[in-house]
């Protein structure tokens, strides 16, 4: 609207009017309009007053046009009111439905329609389509008069197909294959299953983020001079797809030359600071190692009392031998204190759940490194979509206020899991998880599961990550598991129990767990079934006649204490490429209850990337376990280990067996070693992301539990011989989770072991 200011020329200097009249208003009372006019009848006013009145009337957004005119001694205010929206209609939209669009736009029925509001709503609709991947969508707003200064607002929308990404190519990369680089970025090529994920849709913001990911990847692999020369996305109009080309300049691969610490702090001997550095001369240059060293140095130096320390690295390249000499400058930074930590945006999470992630308190020295550390910790909680920590000036020059703004995300998951493995068939699981229960940062999970053969599981678990205000994750689990009689064991088990557990981090890779478990299991064998004598012993049958004359049932209580030590530096859970995982666990059963034994198990794995170009990863796994009891009948068949493909692939079940009924009897001791080479399958499966693997396993399980051994009339096949196999697997990281198919050729086995060449399973086991 353009206000017109028509004043007779003579009124340039001060003038007065005796009254103000309003014309053209229908819905808005004259008194309201006059209240916005700064001219007071009988008092002088100038052009400035008129201008101000004009501004304030327009600011209300109620008027399409306003004009002020002096007629004699009357100030005439003529207004044209903006129309009122009767309804907002979207036409031609299929991909995004009406209700979704109406939440995006601000103009809604009964609102006053203004030019600017229509423009910004049109932009909002276009933005919604952009985020949905449709860059070629067009939106045309139309106004239809419906009388009484009311108007219908119709948005005519022309959508068109999603602009997918058909090919991503890299130019200038020698060190790493296109496939490897595609893995490091998030934009994907449209492939067979692209309808499942939206990552294959062209999105410029994601492309910028990918440039940064590429840079960070190269900088951590020694390419200090790496540059993304260009990232170009050309739209092919006919097929409506994008071709994305990254042109990169890798530059040489650097190693660390000599590494020095140059400190201006007096009573500090740099010599004893070198131990915290992660950048050793001769290592391949790695920017993330430099960042970690800066953090470690800052924390180490501030522990000597220099809280305001500032560590700045400088790298000098020497082109001759492609090394970078690194110098860490350690000096006193600005002396500023944190005055307040103000947390906002936490409409669900409680204040202390956020505040406790800060290692410093209000009134402490301001240290950038500790702020970044808190930021990383908050992001790792998984409660927030975004965490932004900004600083602003406090009440004094040396005081800083930290503003922690969080945007929460839904931390509740309702997931439906389908698992399949040839050993236990199809299993279904329904689970509800809440990771930020009642905003207290507590984890709650309830799950119900079932299989085809009457397997039923009910699980509930709760964890408080900061028990007693310390970094102690304490919690409890409750479960009830019914497993029906399947081909290899004729009895049914109903196990009900729970555990109290507490986990304490020793360092950030090593943690120690302690838990008390109570399990009440009932073993039932129906009348008329035939089973191994060991099973008859389990269910408390008086004699060993089979088929059994009556139903037998035996209830057994196991009350045990377990400690666990877990060391875990695995880089990525679904496709590990580097790092170690080791779990040592010991359970002592016998604090009351029937079972009495000490069970110790070890599971250790190591992963190493042999060649980043071929994406070839070697891994070794060592397993061992033993259960021992100080009292012969403290152990029953169920306390032994039952091993199969999880020890040596190619076996359904191996180890001690009842010679006549061929039931597996379990063993008190097992050991196994397995090596695997796992690689990305190039070309054909590039789009879907299938990996191949070759492996060799060896292992043994022997010596059934004592009470089974001395059952009269039970002939046991048992040798502590090595079973071995070699084989190949296909691993697919499908959107449904990791799926794996193994084919194993058995090299050595006992005649009574039960082999199984092919095995298919879903879900990563860690």
């Amino acid at each position, binding site marked *: 609207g353009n206000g017109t200011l028509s004043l007779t020329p003579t009124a340039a200097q001060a003038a007065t009017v005796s009254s103000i009249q309003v014309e053209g208003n*229908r*819905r*808005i*009372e004259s*008194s*309201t309009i006059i*209240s916005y006019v700064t001219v007071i009848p009988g008092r002088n006013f100038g052009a400035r007053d008129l201008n101000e009145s004009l501004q304030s009337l327009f600011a*209300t957004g*109620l008027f399409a046009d306003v004009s002020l005119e002096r007629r004699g001694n009357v100030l005439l205010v003529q207004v044209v009111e903006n129309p*009122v929206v*009767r*309804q907002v*209609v*979207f*036409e*031609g939209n299929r991909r995004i439905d*009406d209700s979704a669009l109406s939440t995006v736009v601000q103009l809604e*029925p*009964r*609102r006053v329609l203004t030019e600017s509001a229509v423009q910004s709503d049109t932009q909002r609709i276009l933005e919604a389509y952009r985020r949905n991947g449709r860059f070629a969508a067009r939106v045309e707003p139309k106004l*239809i008069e*419906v009388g*009484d*200064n*009311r108007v*219908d607002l*119709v948005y005519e929308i022309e959508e068109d197909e999603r602009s997918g990404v058909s090919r991503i190519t890299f130019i200038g990369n020698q060190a790493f294959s296109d496939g490897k680089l595609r893995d490091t970025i998030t934009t994907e090529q449209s492939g067979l299953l692209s309808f499942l994920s939206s990552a294959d849709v062209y999105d410029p913001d994601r492309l910028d983020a990918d440039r940064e990911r590429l840079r960070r990847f190269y900088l951590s692999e020694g390419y200090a001079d790496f540059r993304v020369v260009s990232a170009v996305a050309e739209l092919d109009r006919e097929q409506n797809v994008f071709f994305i080309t990254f042109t990169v300049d890798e530059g040489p691969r650097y190693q660390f030359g000599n590494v020095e610490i140059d400190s201006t702090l007096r009573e500090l001997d740099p010599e004893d600071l070198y131990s915290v550095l992660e950048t050793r001369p001769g290592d391949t240059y790695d920017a993330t190692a430099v960042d970690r060293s800066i953090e470690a140095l800052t924390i180490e130096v501030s522990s000597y009392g220099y809280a305001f320390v500032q560590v700045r690295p400088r790298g000098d390249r020497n082109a001759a031998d492609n090394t970078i000499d690194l110098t860490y400058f350690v000096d006193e930074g600005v002396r500023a204190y944190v*005055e*307040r930590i103000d*947390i*906002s*945006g*936490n*409409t*669900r*999470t*409680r*204040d*202390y759940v956020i*505040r*406790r992630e800060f290692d410093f*308190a*209000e*009134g*402490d020295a301001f240290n950038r490194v500790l702020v970044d550390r808190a930021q990383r910790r908050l992001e790792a909680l998984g409660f927030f979509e975004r965490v932004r920590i900004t600083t602003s000036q406090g009440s004094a020059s040396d005081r800083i206020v930290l503003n922690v703004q969080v945007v929460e995300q839904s931390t509740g998951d309702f997931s439906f899991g389908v698992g399949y493995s040839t050993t236990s068939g199809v299993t279904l699981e329904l689970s509800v998880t809440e990771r930020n229960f009642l*905003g*207290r940062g507590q984890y709650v999970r309830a799950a119900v599961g079932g299989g085809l053969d009457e397997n039923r599981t009910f699980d509930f678990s709760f964890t*408080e990550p*900061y*028990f*007693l*205000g310390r970094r102690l994750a*304490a919690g409890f689990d409750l479960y009830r598991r019914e497993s029906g009689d399947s081909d290899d064991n004729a009895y049914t088990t109903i196990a009900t129990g729970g555990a109290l557990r507490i986990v304490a981090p020793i360092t950030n890779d090593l943690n120690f767990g302690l838990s008390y478990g109570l399990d009440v299991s009932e073993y039932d064998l129906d009348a008329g079934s035939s089973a191994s004598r060991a099973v008859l012993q389990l269910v408390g049958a008086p004699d060993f006649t089979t088929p059994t004359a009556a139903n037998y049932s035996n209830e057994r209580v196991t009350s045990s204490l377990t400690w666990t030590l877990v060391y875990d530096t695995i880089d990525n859970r679904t496709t590990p490429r580097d790092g170690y995982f080791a779990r040592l666990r010991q359970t002592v059963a016998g604090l009351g209850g029937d079972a009495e034994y000490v069970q110790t198990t070890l599971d250790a794995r190591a992963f190493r990337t042999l060649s980043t170009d071929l994406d070839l990863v070697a891994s070794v796994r060592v397993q061992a376990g033993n259960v021992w009891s100080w009292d012969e009948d403290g152990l029953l068949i169920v306390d032994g280990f039952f091993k199969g493909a999880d020890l040596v692939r190619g076996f359904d079940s191996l180890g001690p067996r009842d010679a006549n009924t061929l039931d597996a009897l379990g063993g008190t001791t097992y050991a196994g070693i397995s090596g695997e080479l796992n690689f990305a399958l190039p070309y054909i499966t590039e789009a879907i992301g299938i990996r191949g693997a070759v492996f060799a396993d060896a292992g043994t399980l022997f010596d059934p539990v004592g009470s089974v051994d001395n059952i009269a009339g039970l002939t046991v096949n048992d040798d502590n011989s090595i079973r071995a196999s070699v084989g190949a697997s296909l691993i697919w990281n499908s959107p449904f989770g990791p799926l794996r198919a193994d084919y194993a050729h058995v090299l050595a086995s006992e005649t009574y072991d039960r082999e199984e060449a092919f095995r298919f399973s879903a879900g990563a086991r860690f």
Partner: protein
Amino acid sequence: CASTEADDFADFVDDTRPPAVMFNEALATMERGDYRAAAEQFDELEQVHPYSEYAKRSLVLGAFSHFSSGRYPEAVNAGRRYVTLHPSGEDAAYAQFIVAQSYYNQIPDVNRDQEQTARAINAFRDLIRRYPDSEYVGPAQEQIRFANDQLAGSEMRVGRYYLDRRNYVASINRFRVVIEEYQTTRHVEEALHRVVENYMSMGVVDEAQTAAAVLGHNFPDSEWYQRSYRLLQSGGLEPQENSGSWISRAFAGFTGQGS
């Protein structure tokens, strides 16, 4: 394919009944207590007859109906629209009160972001500033006091958090915010006692005494003053009262009080 919505807006039939009939129907629905339906009927009247005198009344009654059916965002929108369209209307103060009260009813507990509390206070202050002689000024002042009490409560919560961890500087300064800026709230007594506890823990006994003296002078018979007095007398030797067995502390650990 021709979109089925082409004539969508044509079938929007204007409710041809005169505004008076629609208004009475909506009024009756509201009196029956069916606030959600009444809100919709008032909105529809305003949509069809925006220029009728009834539109003004139905805007404020619509706001009230949304408010009573707990739909606070809608109540705020309706209330705000009334105040901008009819700033000097006779129901303007009431509409502003509905806006403020809608924010007030969404105030979360002290552990969480007090943004709604701040919005409620500003809305009540607008009411007092714009309509100084309206009958809602009294209740508005009352609600401001409660809302301030909530803001003070959130400062207290952080103060106790730092006291538990013995970050005395952080704790003292948080309680001083309550003492200096929220003197009219109920928390000021406890805040003073916490300052005494802080200084006693650091051994700065004379500062603890001044804080206790301020507490005793202003709130002679408050139980917080008793506690400060006992702490000073005993020099803190025998514990105030033991905070329960290890189990109760552990339980508190679970419910988050312990941290």
